[in-house]
Structures are given as C-alpha cells and as structure tokens.
C-alpha cells in the first residue's frame, strides 16, 4: 500500500459531462475540507486551551443569538449554493438526452447485461436488431441513448469512467445517456445487490473511432445468430 491509495483525487473519466461532475466534487471537497479543518482545529484548540487546571472556573455563558444567526445563515447559503450548482449538471445527465443519439437497449438479467443494437436500418425493434452479451460498443464523440430495462430484479448500470450510474427496474424503460470523449476499453459494473452472482455481473464498454465502430457493427449484424 502506498500513500496514493489514500488519494481524494477521482480516477480519470472520459465523457462529456464527467468534467462537470468532477468539478462539483472538487468544489464540495474544498468547501467541506476547509470547514473540516476549521471546526476540528477549533475543537482541538479549545480542548488544549480550556483543559482543566487547578483553580480554573468555566465562564458562565448561555450562548449568543448573534452567533447562532451567523452560522445558521452561512450554512444555509453554502448548502443552497451547492444545490443550485448541482441542479444544472443533474438535469444534463439525467433529463436532457441529446437529439440524434444512437439508441440501444440494455436489459439487465441475473447476472448478465443483454445489449441490443438497432442493426443496419438504424431502428430498434426491427428484424435486423442484434444482441451482444456483457459488452457495450459505441463511437467516440457520439451520444449514446441507452434504454435501460431489467427482467427480474433491480440492477444498476455503473460505467465509472463515464460517471454514469442508473438502476435498472423491471417494468420500466429508463433513459441513460453519455458521450465518450476518448477511445478505449472501460468498465461495466452492477452497483445494486442483485443476488448470488452479483459480483460477477460485469462487462466491457468499448469506445471505438467512428470508422471502427461502423466496421464492428456491420460485422456483428452479418454474423448469423438467433434473433433476440
């Protein structure tokens, strides 16, 4: 184990909104870090400064309304400011799915991720759809809109390098989107306890260049396979 294991730096992320998420994280880290140092520092200072000594008598004092108002207001302002900053990024990530995104279906089932692609016609729900298991493939700089579903119990689609997490709920079709900014192989994990094999429910997210992705999709669509 090294000191880097104690790091409060987030691991690298590669999606269009990941910098915004990480920025809010670092703002909160700084704000709470400063409050932490001040409050614990004051606590330790008081403990040393006002420790019992022969002849000491505590000051008879019941508090100060002025101070109460100051720190109540300060806490409220800081918390609401953090809330307002957070709202915009949350809406981007969870509500505003961009137009023209490539639509795929991810169906979670104990203990696999079934990923359905639209096939050559570009439309889901047609005969040329094809399915791959435990892999999501996408092109860099292209938004992907995942229809997240589940067939049995709750699962949670976790793409740590994309800063994406969303529970999959049987009976619901939940929109999840991201746009990767770098090619590479990333993690797919399940973040919601889903049964005995929960720990094995992982997979790979592959981000290709646009040309490579087309080639992959074409090859997959032509491979003979039973219809999903």
């Amino acid at each position: 184990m090294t000191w880097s294991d104690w790091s409060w730096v987030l691991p690298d992320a590669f999606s269009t909104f990941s910098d915004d998420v990480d920025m809010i994280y670092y703002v909160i880290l700084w704000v709470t870090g400063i409050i932490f140092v001040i409050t614990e520092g004051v606590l330790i200072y008081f403990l040393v400064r006002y420790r019992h000594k022969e002849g000491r008598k505590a000051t008879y004092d019941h508090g100060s309304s002025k101070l109460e108002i100051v720190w109540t207001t300060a806490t409220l302002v800081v918390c609401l400011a953090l809330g307002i900053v957070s709202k915009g990024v949350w809406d981007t990530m969870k509500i505003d799915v961009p137009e023209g995104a490539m639509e795929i279906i991810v169906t979670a089932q104990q203990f696999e991720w079934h990923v359905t692609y639209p096939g050559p016609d570009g439309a889901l729900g047609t005969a040329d759809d094809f399915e791959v298991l435990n892999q999501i493939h996408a092109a860099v700089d292209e938004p992907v809109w995942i229809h997240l579903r589940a067939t049995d119990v709750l699962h949670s689609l976790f793409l740590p390098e994309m800063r994406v997490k969303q529970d999959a709920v049987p009976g619901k079709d939940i929109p999840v989107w991201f746009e990767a900014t770098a090619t590479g192989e990333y993690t797919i994990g399940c973040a919601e306890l889903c049964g005995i094999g929960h720990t094995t429910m992982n997979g790979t997210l592959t981000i290709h260049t646009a040309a490579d992705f087309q080639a992959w999709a074409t090859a997959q669509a032509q491979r003979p396979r039973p219809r999903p």
Partner: protein
Amino acid sequence: MSTTEKDIASAVDAGGQHDHHEIPWIRKYVFATDHKMIAKQFMFVSLFFLVVGGALAGMMRFQLGFPGQPMPGAGILPDAMMAPTPNGAIMLPEFYNSLVTMHGTIMIFFAIMPLLVGLFGNLLIPLQIGAEDMAFPRLNMASFWLAVPAGMLMLASFAVEGGAAGAGWTSYAPLSTSGEWTGVYLGQQLWLVSLTILGFSSLIGAVNYITTVINLRAPGMTWFRIPLATWSLFVTAVLILLAIPILAGALLMLLFDQTIGTGFFRPDVGGEPLLWQHLFWFFGHPEVYILILPAMGITSEVLSNRARKPIFGYHSMVLALISIGFLGWIVWGHHMFQSGMNPLLGTSFMISTMAIAVPSAIKTFNWLGTLWKADIHFDVPMLHALSFVSMFIIGGLSGIFMASTPVDIYIHDTYFIVAHLHYVLFGGSLFAIFAGITYWFPKMFGRMMNEPLGKVHFVLTFIFYNLVFFPMHNLGLQGMMRRIYDFTQYDFLQPLQPMNQFITLFAFALITTQVLFVINFFWSIFKGETAGNNPWNSNTLEWTVPSPPPHGNFAQMPTVFRGPYEYSSPESDDDFLPQTTPPREGPGPSSGVPAPTPTPEGAEV
C-alpha cells in the same frame, strides 16, 4: 390498582420507605416493570447483539481482505455458509449476502436502536423529569418481552434452510419478494416477521415515552427545563410512533408478496418495485434520525457537564432537534436518486437534504461553543462525547457529497456511502453510546467504571475505528461498490486489494479492542469504586437520588427551580447548581436560562 402501582403509591406515601416490600425475584429481574431494570435488560441484550453484529462484520471483512481464501476456524460453520475445500473453508457468495444483510439489520434494529432508545430512553426519561416510573410500566415490560422473541427469530434465521435473509438490510424488491431470486425463502420471511414484532415493541415503547414526558414531569420541570437527553428521546419517540407503522405496513405487504401471492412490489403481476423503496425510506430516513438524535442528546449532557459550562444555546439546541424531527420526513428521496424515480424529484430532495444540514450544523457549532472558555475534564465519558462531535463532523460533511445529485451518481452504492454511514452510526451513535454507558454506569450499578482501562479502550477504539472507516472513502472514490462479494472480479478494482487488507486487519484490531470494554464493564459491576449519588457533580434530577435509585426513584417529589445546565453559575459557590436547589433568598442574579422561579401550583404535575 395493580400490585406494582400500589407498591409505588404506598412507597411514596411512606416518604420513600421503598424496600419494605420485597418484590419477587421473577418480577424484579425477569418480568420487571421497573424502568431501570428494563433499561438494563435492553442494555444486556443489545450489547449481546452488538457482539453478534461485530462478529458478522469480522467475517465480511475477512472475505474482502482475503477474497476466496480459506477462513481460519470457519470449518465449524455448515457447508451452506462455507464451502469446504482441502485447504479450509471458503465463504460462499450467498453467505456473504446474508452477512451484509444481517450485519446491517442487527446493528441498526437490535443493537444501536435498543441501546439508544431502550436503554437510555428507559433509564433517563423518568429519572430526568422526576417521575417514579414510566406512565405504563406493564407496557414497558411488554416492549422488552416483544423485542426478545424478535431477536431470537432473527438469529434463528441463520439456521434454517437457505440461510438468513440476503437482500440487504433494505431488502429491495423484487429481489426480496421471492426465494427464486436469492435462494433464501424462510430466512427472508423470518426477517420480515422478526422486524414486524420488533416494530410493535418500539411502538409500545414510544407511546410510553411520549405519555411519560408529557404527563409525569415534576413540579417546575417546564418544557424548557428538560435536559437535552430527554428532549432528544422525546422527539425520537414521536418519530418512532409515526415511522414504525409505515415500516410495519411495508413489511406485511412484502410478506404477503412472498407467501400468499400478492403483487404489491412484483412487476410481473403489475406491482411497483419502487413503492417498496418509497415506503422503506419514508420510514428509513426518520429511522436514521432515530439513531442519531438520542446520541446528540447524550453528547450534550456529557459535554456540558464535563466542560462545567452551560450548554451553548439551549433553546436553539431544542429547536434544532425539533426541526430535524420535521425535516427528516421530507428527505427520504435522497436514498433514491439513482432508483429510476422521476429525476425532477431528485432536485427537490437535494434541496430538502441540503436544508437538513442546517440544524445539524447548528448543533455542532453549539457543542463547540460549549467548550469555549470552559473547564474541560477529560474523563472517559467526555472522551467518547468529544469523539462523537469530531466524528459527526466528518459524517455530516461527507453527507454533502451524496446530497449533491450529480456527485451522488458516481459515489452512490460505493464504499463512500459505507464510510459515511459508519461515521454517523459508529463514529456518531456508538461513541455516544459508550459515552452514555460510562457516564450513567454509576447511576445504574452504584459503582464507577475503571478509568485507566476505559481510557485505553477509548484511545485504541478511536484510532482503529478511523483506520478502518476513513480509507473506505478512498475505496469508494476509486469506484469500489458496496455489498460485493469479490471485488477482484473487476480489473479496475484489483489495485484496491492492499487497502482492503489494511482495513480488514485494523477491523480485527477494532473488534478485539472491545474485549477491554467487556472486561471493564463486568469487572466494574462487581469491583468498581463505589459511586456516590452524584459522582459527576451534575445538575439533573437523576443525580439527586441514590445510585442505583430505589424502586419509585424519588423519596419525595422533587421540585425544579431552573434549567439543567447551570454549571459555574455565580449563584453557587460550587461549579454546579442542581435543578432542585432552591434559589437564594433576596434579590440577586436571576437563575438564568430559562424561566423565572416557579411556584409548585403553577407547574405541571
């Protein structure tokens, strides 16, 4: 009038000649109606469950520190839990899921909650308000004797076919609706039945506490003279009264889904899985405050006493307790940001969650204010209370990360959450429980706990606790999920193996350290230094009576003249001024916060 009530009545009439009338052994120690004995019963049973919960955590930590390796000594466990191999027994994933579930369930429902509410609620409420017992002593007895079979059922579930419940302490549907998904059938049903019974126990207790505080206060004990421990327990009892029926309803619905084919939470027959989460957390978030408010109250008592200074901002402390009690009802959705509920709701719940940070911050600042210009005595209860404050700061601040919805997307269901909740429940509640037990131990047993041994226990616990739980923040930030049997299945988590081993080794050290507390506890019951009525020079009513207090508590109805925290008052030559000491004659400084001198006629009885 029952025998017991007659006992009390005649004892009071006789001016405190309580012990003439021998209570049969079984009524005194087993089916007891005396609130102090029930408090002790809750304490012994809950401490036992604390040990059980700790053992479960130890096994979990072994698997995380040494995934897939044989566990020493685990060969004695049945094959359904540990798979035998030539090298030793290896933990099965289904047993790991049961450990996760049962550690959470037992610690929350059978250790922390009954210690805070069952032990301190019973012990402190009548003594601190000047009552001879609870309003309903027999209901009180029923409350304890419902909790016992609930605990036995919960433990028994380990022994049934399929093992104990394995869907997490939150038992999210649909995973929990059928053994088809978990392999656990009877175990999950026992979990549901046990918690339903325990819920009734808590409800009965809550009704009793509320009635007692409202009706049985001694003359002069106005609302704003009630010590903060009792205030916090009162607010907690109101939360229990309102929250438990929701849990009970949800538990029964889930039980019906499991056993008689209803489909409240089963989407395959038209049910709604998210309904379970809404019901569970609508109970569950108030439950979080049930687990922390009494700890705040205990801390306030100990802090003010050992700092020999009035609590800073008594009124705002009470108002903060009450506003947490209200706001606690409108923040449940922050457990569900990633659940698939409408994301617009996420923002509403984020704002309400940010708002509830305010009363918590007020309390923290007031504790710091109490220490300002104080005269601080570092006795063992004070050390634990101070570590409550410093650890609660960490737990409170880490909560802001997950209150922010976009950040929560990344850290939700990771070890960051595990770190946060243990900073609140262990760093917060459990340190306050240690503070409370060591502080009121002389009142319960008439003897002091051993101070040097207590200090060693405190220092080691504080260090090991932080070495176990602080690095969990870092694990979570690296993306390590919670409730995961073998994180090394994920390539990106494999570098976290050394840190996990580090945590596991210190977890074992932390668990072992608790032996010191057990030794101190039992040794002190029999051999501790004899304590007088008031070993801490405290102001509150429980310290005006003998240690341990007799049946009926007060030889005469006490009269209360002032607030509970008049330490270092200029009105007294000592550095404390008990609530029962009559004001000095003639003009002089008023008796301080709050309220003028009462007349017994004007006071509630």
